């Protein structure tokens, strides 16, 4: 699991990075966190001629709110999102997604923009940001353009980016004063890619839904938007009946397949369950506790037994031994 031969460039300015990338044409690849690209290279599924490492490019690591919009620079790591105060509340969908991505090692390095550029249908950011109606800023030697996420993500590992383009920033629009959402992910074990995940992001005005974003992870060739469900919710109060109907519609929008994680029917059902749970949480954000991870343990379970030796640290034991020796 060692990669083939490649050239390595580490520019320090965006201009330089764009020019370098432009020079390699479709033989060059941007290297951000490396958490998707390097495994592919080690498996020799990808063998780019050159890597253009953007980690030294100044100014790409900004995570900030500007004019009500959230701006996520190309070098903002999953970990930054997980820790940022900005992401809670109205952008609950993003705050809840971040800590559910893989493990701390991957989160320390992997980037939001890199996830979008990688376009893995099992990626979590794709859905969270689709639900939040985000778009990306793509720069190239020739200029820059904005691409809505819906148009960026084309299919499995396929985007609308040109080989010479770099996503410099992700922009998430202002969801309004009253908004709530969450990201519910079913994983076989902690740190796993999603079996199914659902992003829900709802804005309210005058007691009704002004905009609903619902997107689905791992149940189609790309992160899918449940547009029928979104449309059905808009303009109406978010009551039980509306929630159930939206969940049904969203399940219909899923295009799951049988695989080692579960059957297609199973996954479709989890979409329904999660959309329902997610919308319920959005309807009553004040009641929500922590992100409901897989089947939370019942409250008030008995305390673990004292006999359990794992509580002891090595130092405790050594101390005990020394004390005995001293006697």
């Amino acid at each position, binding site marked *: 699991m060692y990669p083939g031969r490649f050239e390595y460039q580490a520019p320090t300015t965006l201009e330089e990075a764009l020019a370098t990338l432009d020079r390699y044409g479709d033989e060059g690849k941007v290297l951000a966190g490396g958490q998707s690209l390097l495994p592919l290279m080690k498996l020799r599924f990808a063998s780019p001629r050159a890597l253009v490492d953007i980690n030294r490019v100044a100014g790409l690591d900004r995570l900030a709110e500007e004019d009500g919009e959230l701006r996520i620079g190309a070098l903002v790591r999953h970990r930054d999102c997980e820790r940022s105060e900005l992401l809670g509340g109205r952008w609950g969908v993003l705050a809840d997604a971040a800590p559910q991505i893989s493990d701390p090692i991957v989160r320390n390095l992997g980037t939001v923009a890199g996830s979008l550029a990688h376009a893995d249908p099992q990626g979590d950011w794709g859905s969270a940001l689709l639900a939040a109606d985000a778009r990306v800023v793509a720069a190239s030697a020739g200029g820059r353009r904005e691409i809505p996420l819906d148009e960026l993500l084309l299919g499995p590992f396929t985007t609308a980016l040109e080989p010479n383009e770099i996503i410099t920033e992700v922009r998430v629009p202002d969801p309004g004063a009253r908004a709530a959402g969450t990201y519910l992910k079913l994983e*076989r074990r902690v740190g796993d890619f999603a079996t199914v995940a659902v992003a829900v992001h709802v804005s309210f005005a005058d007691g009704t839904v002004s905009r609903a974003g619902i997107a689905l992870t791992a149940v189609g060739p790309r992160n899918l938007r449940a547009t029928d469900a979104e449309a059905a919710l808009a303009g109406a109060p978010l009551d039980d009946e509306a929630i159930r109907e939206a969940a049904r519609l969203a399940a219909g929008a899923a295009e799951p397949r049988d695989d080692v994680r*579960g*059957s297609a*029917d199973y996954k479709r059902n989890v979409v329904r369950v999660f959309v329902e749970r997610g919308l*319920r949480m959005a309807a009553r954000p004040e009641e929500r506790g922590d992100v409901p991870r897989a*089947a939370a343990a*019942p409250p008030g379970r008995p305390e673990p037994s004292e006999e359990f*030796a794992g509580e002891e640290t*090595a130092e405790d034991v050594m101390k005990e031994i020394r004390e005995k020796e001293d006697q």
Partner: protein
Amino acid sequence: MPAWVGRRMPRREDAELLTGRGRFIGDLGRSGMVHAVFLRSPYPHARIVSIDASRALAMPGVRAVLTGADLPEDLGAQPNTHLFGERETPYFALARERARYAGEPVAVIVADSQYLAEDARDEVIVDWEPLPSVGDADRALADDAPLVYGDRDWPDNVAATFEQEMGDVDSAFDEADVVVTERYRIQRQFGCSLETRGVLAEWDENVDELTLWTSSQIVHIARDLLAAVLGLPEHRIRVLVPRIGGGFGAKFHFYPEETAVALAARATGRPVRWVEDRMESFLATVHAREQRVEISMAAREDGTITAVKGDLVGDMGAALHTVGYGPLWLTAVMITNVYEIPNARVRARAVVTNKTPLGSFRGWGQPQANFVVERTVDRLARELGMDRADLRRRNFIPPERLPRKSLHHTLDSGDYPRCLDRALELLDERGWRERQHELRDEGRHVGIGISFYTENSALGPSRMLNQGGVQQGGYDIARVRVEPGGEVTLYTGLCEMGQGVTNALSQVCADNLGVHPEKIKVVTGDTSQVPYTGYGTGASRGAAVGGAAVMRASRKVREKVMRIAGHMLEANPDDLEAEDGMIFVRGTPTAAVTMGDVGRAAYLRAIELPEGEDPGLEAIEAFDPPQFAWPYGANIAVVEVDVDTGEVSFLDYIYVHDCGTIVNPMIVEGQIMGAVAQGIGAALFESLPYDEEGQPLFGTFMEYVLPTAAELPRLVMEHQHTPSPNIPGGMKGVGEAGTIGSPAAVVAAIEDALAPYGVRINETPVTPSAILAMVGEREVTPA
């Protein structure tokens, strides 16, 4: 009075390992060392028409490409040491003519760096002729199945059939009030280690001697098998085992790569290292467990189980590896578990398929036996309307009737009812039976599962092994030496693979010699230094068999220490005591000499020795157990199932067991926790599925789901102590125990949680998707 045995002591290697200073194969380097990678068959079954390595060989930095055609004519097939009467399934260091499973090594490529070797591998061109193949034991048994060994004129795919019977099974079934029959499927799993395998070989041309570092649990067996395959005398090969990052039985095998890397070292005249990469480890390291079992139990209305019969099919993969079909055999003969069932009959068929060979994994065949027996006992309880625990109690072999022979083995000692009762007491102290009712009333799905196991440990009486067909002994030999300065060096053939055996052995030595454990250095993993061990490091034998050998050697040395000290102190040796390196006259601690004084006398100052005493201060002693030792225990799992998503979470896990004398409770608890994690892996997560033709449907940790700390319960553990009557010191083994009873308990708990749906779960792993398929979709439970 034992001072060290029984103490909680952190492992001596912890600091080294936790600070990243452990030296594994991947950390070793030799001057001039080059790197090997393997080209493996992409097909489950294919003929090798030709291999063209010319482009690879032309690449700069490439030293050699060896294929099956380059192997020495007289090279032996990879041996199987567990011969139970089976057809031969020869396979070699590299596939000759045909490959029988995806992942079989076909060529080894040696280059100056790992990068170059992998580049070159891409340039080796194999012309394959794919052949019909079979990826499932049931299909392999069908009349028109593709034959895995059609080229060796096998009429079918059955490598061996094993049958054993006791009592009068047919009459018992005829006379039974109740009969239950169930069919189970147990998936493939494997002993997945943090450290993959690795080999480093250096051939000294001048003297024609080979040094081989290998990540192995069987240091001497590996040497001997390598010698046999290469046709070299054993003493021309030195095998060394550095730190091992987990073995779990998978490293109890002798692999084609060990031979191939040795040959590559000879071919290149360079030290050659190969470290298995994570992806190839899923195919190149032996798999384990896969069986389907049909089992019937006959009982009287009062719950007395009168007979059991089992029909087992083991999917052995493409060859019988180092331990043959041993694990399948063990499943078969454990079919009565801890119960006094007078009539039993088993048939086990070892079936070959075009899949990675099956081999050892912590528990061997016992988790499968336990699963099918314990789940069927539950079923019987349901059928009889009896409490599950009562039914078990009624059928336990009572303590006063132990030792008692079961189908093959003689269970030695213990008190099963007391162990189960204590576990149930803990369950009630923790309020679970009551809470289960309350939670059920709230609409939650909480279940309790019980199982009871025994474990075949302290393997094993050498004669019994040989009689059964094992071409190895079951003894262990230890050498204990007091150095001139009074420190102690203990040499053992057992390997330290993270299980802490060196700590346990030094605690035993400390007590029996009268020194502090920190004064004892334990030397392992070097055939040029350590005494021979009969069986290798497995079968839960380290503390029991190895410990007993250390005990004997330590005592022998101590006798001499006492004679010398007695002479120095002008006291009768019988009046002396040794503790913490001081030897003194009982009751007069001021009249003392140190172990160093004795050591100096023994080696340097013969003038201080008693008349006629030989110089030197060491002893070598063997121990061959007269019988196995049988630890046992109860697992109780409490789980909750989310019926909307099928997810299972643990609310509690109770583990009460008896493994005889405990040398170091911290180690025992760690062993049980780790093994239960693997049992839970079996119940819920881990699987190595293949398609019908034998193409693997896995390849990375994306498919092979190992549970992490987050998914696992915190164990509530209690120890009971019935010393083994067969082992000096009373130890029974424990390393594998946790894997055995845990799958049954966890699956029983899920079934209990889903009682409202009346489901039966006879297949593992129980995934969320499988659970939902059983309970069906329903209205979402409002939060």
